[in-house]
């Protein structure tokens, strides 16, 4: 399994629909301070079912929706889709490609989808369970968090080991 593509629209600073294609190997994302690089990492964490507002650096769930600028109006919804290659059947479902989608409206209403079929958030959590891609795991290391693995008290270090167990 690997990440083929991510489509972001209306999520944080990505007002317009933006698509990042990936291959196996190493992809680097570069750019000036504040340009939107960590927002891409937040988009991936969010579509995988992240429910903690704090770890998305916002104060409310609506903070992920593009809030407008001096020349642009705010938008009504944020949507992110993650397209994963499933040819080695890491996910126990019978598709070559798995598309996970999450959408949230300003009204607070949320939509979750797997391969364009609507589902519950719980289904998305279950999809990623046991792949090591869990939200508490080590598959997303946020900005400034790398040394936290060391500096927390020894009992706080367990979660990364449990995820790997």
């Amino acid at each position, binding site marked *: 399994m690997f990440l083929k593509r991510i489509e972001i629209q209306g999520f944080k600073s990505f007002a317009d629909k933006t698509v990042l294609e990936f291959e196996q190997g*190493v992809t*680097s994302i570069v750019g000036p301070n504040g340009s939107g690089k960590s927002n891409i990492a937040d988009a991936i964490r969010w579509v995988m079912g992240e429910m903690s507002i704090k770890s998305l650096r916002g104060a409310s769930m609506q903070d992920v929706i593009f809030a407008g600028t001096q020349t642009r109006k705010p938008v009504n919804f944020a949507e992110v889709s993650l397209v994963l290659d499933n040819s080695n059947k890491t996910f126990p479902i019978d598709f070559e490609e798995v598309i996970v989608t999450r959408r949230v409206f300003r009204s607070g209403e949320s939509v979750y989808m797997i391969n364009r079929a609507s589902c519950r958030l719980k289904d998305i959590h279950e999809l990623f369970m046991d792949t090591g891609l869990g939200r508490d795991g080590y598959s997303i290391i946020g900005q400034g968090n*790398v040394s936290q693995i*060391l500096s927390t008290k020894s009992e706080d270090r367990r979660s990364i080991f449990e995820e790997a167990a």
Partner: protein
Amino acid sequence: MEEHFSNQFSKINKSFAEVFSELFGGGRGRLYLSEPDNILESGIEIEVQMPGKGLQNIDLYSGGEKSFIAIALLFAILKVKPTPFCILDEIDAALDDVNVSRFASYLRNYLSMTQFIVITHRRGTMEASNILYGVTMQEKGVSKLLSLHIDDIKDEMAN
């Protein structure tokens, strides 16, 4: 449950010892349980000896050394239980230029198991990637994506 955790833990410990001496070019890294009798709740201690230095408390190490030790632990865990992809957001920020290149070339050892997406400002890390995306805000407050080639980097960083 207990047996499974302690099996995995000793595998990660063995892998940490290997990764540590590869990344640092020597020295020793070791993980152990603070309360070995209480496997399911015990805290995890990290003991490290840099090449040529004495054994010391992890707090005495420098900012860059701590980042690098944490990176070694991450790689050790990825070796034992790889994840399909891994997003790293500026984990190279505290490293000096030599350690950035060590980290960047070490990443390439894991490509058969894990896909990496790395956010960075450091040139050594950019040079180790096969795809390069630039994110800019030509229109203030709105992020746009550019597909870059490593040669563009000099210009891109300048504007």
